[in-house]
């Protein structure tokens, strides 16, 4: 690593730190979270970028939250989708959606 920034975990010498022992390394991109929204209907909203962003979503059931869509070990339908301008939710179940600056089309 010629130029850049690297931060190791506590009690680990940054000079010797392996990849999994680093908190941050400017050689590796990170997920930059720019937006969080809660939805309670099947709807869509403008995300503010001009490309499809990476995202994660969480689904509420009672007082509990799970990541992603319900299903049976892979046979599950995604409940959120994005395109270059909007976020779409496919269910009225309450969800929390976070969006990343990171693009999906590059």
């Amino acid at each position, binding site marked *: 690593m010629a130029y850049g920034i690297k931060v190791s975990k506590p009690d680990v010498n940054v000079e010797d730190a392996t990849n999994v022992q680093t908190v941050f390394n400017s050689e590796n991109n990170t997920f930059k979270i720019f937006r969080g929204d809660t939805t309670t209907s099947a709807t869509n909203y403008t995300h503010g970028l001009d490309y499809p962003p990476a995202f994660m979503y969480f689904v509420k059931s009672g007082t509990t939250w799970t990541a*992603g869509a319900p299903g049976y070990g892979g046979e599950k339908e995604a409940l959120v989708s994005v395109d270059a301008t909007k976020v779409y939710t496919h269910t009225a179940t309450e969800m929390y959606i976070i969006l990343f*600056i990171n693009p999906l089309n590059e």
Partner: protein
Amino acid sequence: MKISKSGFDVETAANKDLILSTQFDMFKIAKTGSLVLNLPEETKGDGAASSTYTQTYSHGLGYVPLLIPDASSVLTDVITALGGGEDAIVNDAANDAFIMASGPPGTNELATLYATTTQIVLKVVRNWDYAGTFGAHSVTCYYTIFYNKIGETFNLL
């Protein structure tokens, strides 16, 4: 503070060409660990009531944290000809598809990882649509929880 990707001038780089920018939030890992359920051998008849097992971790954050993996009603065990009683890792099962015409057989074992304001919970539910025996086995889920809150509305653009 911001750091651009290699080949991009940090002064003019678009947000998507930055490695890091303190304008935006990041995932902050609070805790990682494993939840393990040791399930007994269990036999029930047609249409019997389901059995539920849970294993918990108290995260102590006072709010519902972001968590991974994505594991909701993940099929961990199916008895009869498809086998049963093998130790299962939910992270693997969540990624591997069990492709059926209309969902899993009615007699099945499904795992879910979820978060509350106080706990991370691994829940396994056994269902008996028809009679059968589930073998004794373990169900393990590796989790990562973050300091980031579920439900926080914000826009940093």
